[in-house]
């Protein structure tokens, strides 16, 4: 008996589903109902207006005229909507759908129709993206959902040999969350293929998404697939157990992250220094004492001078100039740009924000060059 054939069953089910869906898409009947409703309202208002006019109720008549004109406008726009050309997707023939299902067997090694679950399933080959083995996936078209959702959400993607991200057990693929595919650029082509009954094309498009990695928009980046490496101790951590250092911008494990005792910013141990007699561990913005001699100094000046007071900076400057000459790198960086000669000293504005860097001047900036000479001299 042919009707026992699951492929034939699937084709018939698809035929009915897509027929219903195409009727659903066609809102002509709905628009016509709306116009009929507005027409009845128009008739009723016209009768009432005749009554109010005949009895000389001017106020009521004026109100009714406004309502009548509004109703006439609704009828007019409703008729225009009815006359608008509609792109109703062609209803695919049963033979076409059988051919589509036949093509699935040519495109995929494993195809399975599950009548009880109302699903058509194919299995991909094992997928490896950026050297991360993700295993094979089952792409499953849910026919009951297809009746109301002619788009990628009618598909489920289920990992067959899951290798989920270390940081998110729900992500077996960078573009799959749970069993939902985020089709990205394939969203429109998949919806179009489904609405036209091109089932094999829709499956191929889902497969194409699974075989592609878009690092700019992934649930979990493949570079972090096996966990995030702590920059300090090198331990691999679960994505939820990684902490970001505000100072250097790197990721650290819970053992290697700390915070500034004064501003509470999250910082790694390398970005903190001891400051003061009580041994507070602080960021460079909160330092109150010179990191070399321990002398209390102006907070802003310390920040601009890499934690050094004026005296220690002056001691360090000649070495720095030599280093800069060797490295052939632009110098300044908020150190040499600050005048250290008392005669040239200009008070820094008191309202300057504490957590703001001075712009790094270009290497050939004559102002910096002169400052450099002044500070080194």
């Amino acid at each position: 008996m042919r009707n026992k054939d699951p492929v034939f069953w699937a084709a018939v089910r698809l035929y009915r589903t897509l027929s219903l869906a195409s009727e659903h898409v066609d809102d002509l009947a709905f628009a016509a109902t709306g116009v009929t409703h507005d027409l009845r309202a128009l008739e009723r208002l016209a009768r009432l207006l005749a009554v109010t006019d005949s009895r000389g109720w001017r106020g009521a008549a004026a109100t009714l005229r406004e309502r009548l004109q509004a109703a006439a406008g609704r009828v007019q726009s409703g008729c225009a909507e009815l006359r608008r050309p509609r792109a109703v997707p062609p209803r695919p023939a049963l033979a076409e759908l059988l051919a589509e299902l036949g093509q699935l067997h040519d495109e995929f090694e494993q195809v399975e129709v599950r009548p009880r679950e109302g699903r058509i399933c194919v299995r991909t080959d094992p997928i490896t993206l950026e050297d991360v083995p993700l295993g094979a996936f089952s792409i499953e078209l849910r026919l009951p959902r297809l009746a109301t959702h002619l788009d990628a959400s009618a598909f489920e993607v289920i990992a067959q040999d899951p290798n989920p991200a270390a940081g998110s057990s729900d992500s077996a693929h960078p573009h799959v969350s749970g069993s939902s595919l985020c089709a990205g650029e394939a969203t429109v082509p998949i919806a179009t293929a489904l609405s036209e009954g091109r089932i094999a094309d829709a499956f191929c498009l889902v497969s194409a998404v699974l075989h592609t990695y878009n690092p700019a928009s992934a649930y979990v980046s493949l570079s972090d697939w096996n966990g995030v490496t702590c920059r300090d101790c090198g331990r691999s951590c679960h994505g939820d157990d990684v902490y970001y250092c505000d100072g250097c911008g790197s990721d650290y494990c819970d053992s290697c992250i700390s915070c500034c005792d004064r501003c509470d910013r999250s910082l790694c141990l390398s970005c903190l220094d001891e400051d003061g007699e009580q041994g507070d561990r602080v960021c460079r913005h909160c330092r109150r004492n010179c990191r070399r001699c321990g002398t209390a100094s102006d907070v802003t000046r310390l920040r601009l001078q890499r934690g050094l007071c004026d005296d220690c900076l002056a001691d360090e400057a000649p070495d720095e100039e030599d280093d800069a000459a060797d490295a052939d790198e632009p110098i300044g960086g908020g150190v040499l740009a600050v005048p250290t000669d008392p005669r040239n000293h200009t008070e820094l504005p008191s309202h300057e924000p504490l957590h703001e860097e001075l712009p790094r001047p270009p290497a050939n900036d004559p102002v910096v060059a002169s400052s450099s000479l002044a500070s080194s001299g």
Partner: protein
Amino acid sequence: VQILFVNNLGGGFADHIEVPEGTTVAQLFEQRMANSDASDFLIRVDRLPAAADQVLHAGARVSFTPLKIEGARR
């Protein structure tokens, strides 16, 4: 000759188009998918794999489906 052309890239539309008699699959790809590499596409004529020099016949169903499409996060 008139063929059914299915472009699964971008809008993913299917349309009946007119092509000169003797047009090959490679020529159609060149016309319709400029700046794309044929090796990045699944090319089917009447649902079957096709050779580049295969001549298109009237009523042929030609589909170009990309092998790689970027997904997203949501």
